[in-house]
């Protein structure tokens, strides 16, 4: 009961989605539309589950008060403020919600990822070594692309941008395509195993 019904649901949902590709007529097209709408709604609840987990973790921290527990207050207060203004005024442009998005959320989110520029520079210096022929190939390709893709490359040698573009369009494309085909075949076989109930790991846990 705990596993059989989910396996049946997976099979039906998967088969409907497959069949509507080959028979895009009733009843499969209608079923697909219906399942699509249901999917949108259920996905939101999956995301709400994530929010629930976040609350669970941080309210527990408030109860147990480990080192740095007051940061959980910051997190929950940030949530409460943003959620309240969003629910009261809505997400339209020009609302307090929009103001907080542009002046609080954007700077933090952007800077958090901008920090990676420093770490990538440091990693380039410390870890990027021509230890083997393969690593040397990687290094040469990276340097040519890096210099070829910025205007400076054009000033060093006018062929550098063209060489950079050539690497991207041919050898890089070939490598990416091989990866893509490999991934696609892997996903196709995994999907088939899931629909047929052979792969069941997603049903593990409580």
């Amino acid at each position, binding site marked *: 009961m705990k596993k059989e019904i989910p396996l049946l649901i997976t099979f039906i949902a998967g088969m409907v989605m*497959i069949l509507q590709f080959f028979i895009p007529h009733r009843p499969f097209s209608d079923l697909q539309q219906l399942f699509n709408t249901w999917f949108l709604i259920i996905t939101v609840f999956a*995301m709400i589950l994530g929010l629930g987990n976040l609350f669970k973790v941080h309210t527990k921290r408030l109860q147990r008060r480990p080192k740095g527990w007051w940061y*959980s207050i910051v997190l929950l207060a940030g949530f409460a403020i943003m*959620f309240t203004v969003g629910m009261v005024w809505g997400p339209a442009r020009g609302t307090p919600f929009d103001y907080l998005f542009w002046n609080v959320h954007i700077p933090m*989110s952007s800077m958090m990822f901008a920090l990676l520029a420093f770490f990538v520079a440091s990693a380039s210096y410390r870890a990027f070594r021509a230890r083997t022929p393969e690593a040397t190939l990687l290094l040469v390709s990276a340097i040519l692309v890096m210099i070829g893709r910025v205007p400076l490359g054009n000033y060093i040698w006018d062929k550098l941008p063209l060489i950079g573009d050539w*690497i*991207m369009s041919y050898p890089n494309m*070939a490598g990416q395509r*091989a990866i893509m085909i490999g991934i696609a075949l892997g996903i196709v076989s995994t999907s088939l195993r899931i629909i047929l109930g052979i792969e069941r790991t997603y049903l593990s846990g409580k």
Partner: protein
Amino acid sequence: MIETLGIWMAAFLTLCILSFLYKDNPFYKFAEHLFVGLSAAYWAVYYYFNILLPNLIQPLFGHGQLLLIIPLVLGIMMIMRLFPKVGWVSRWPLAFIVGSYSGYNLITYLQSKALEQVRATLVPFIQIESWKNLFTNPGVMTFLNAIAVPVVVVGVTTGVIYFFFSKEHKGVFGGFARIGVWFLMIAFGASFGYTVMARISLLIGRVYFLLHDWLGLIQ
């Protein structure tokens, strides 16, 4: 006034995050937790206004589309995962999501990422025009253009051979797999180059904000 306050607030929070470069500190931790809380609320508000309201609440309670009770119940079952005793009921909606996604993926991955890519690789090995160009106008670029198609065909074929693990990578097969690795290395190198480019761009964006919007040092 309110705009200036916004810019100062944004600058302060930007500097809080930037301070992590020196070392982990309370300013960074404050901004980090505020960011997580704010982001979660942002998503929650969008879930309500962009999905729950138009696709569930209005059609179900406003237009009486009773069939929507099914995803509502399945959705509530999903949230039950938060409670260990009844957590197993979340398998039903999870099964629906996984099943639907698998069904879509099976066909679309096969079509767009396997068959279409193989089709695009099956092109004439020798492009006569490019070779004519090379002999009439020899140079770095005409040479690279002449060998472009063979490079793609060899790269894709040997790359796929490398990913074939059912046969040991030895002998001729191993040789092809090794060539495949070279192409993968070039692709990873290109990806590394582009990753550097991306990260620097993000930094430029923030520095531009500080110098232009906040300090007014650049016009």
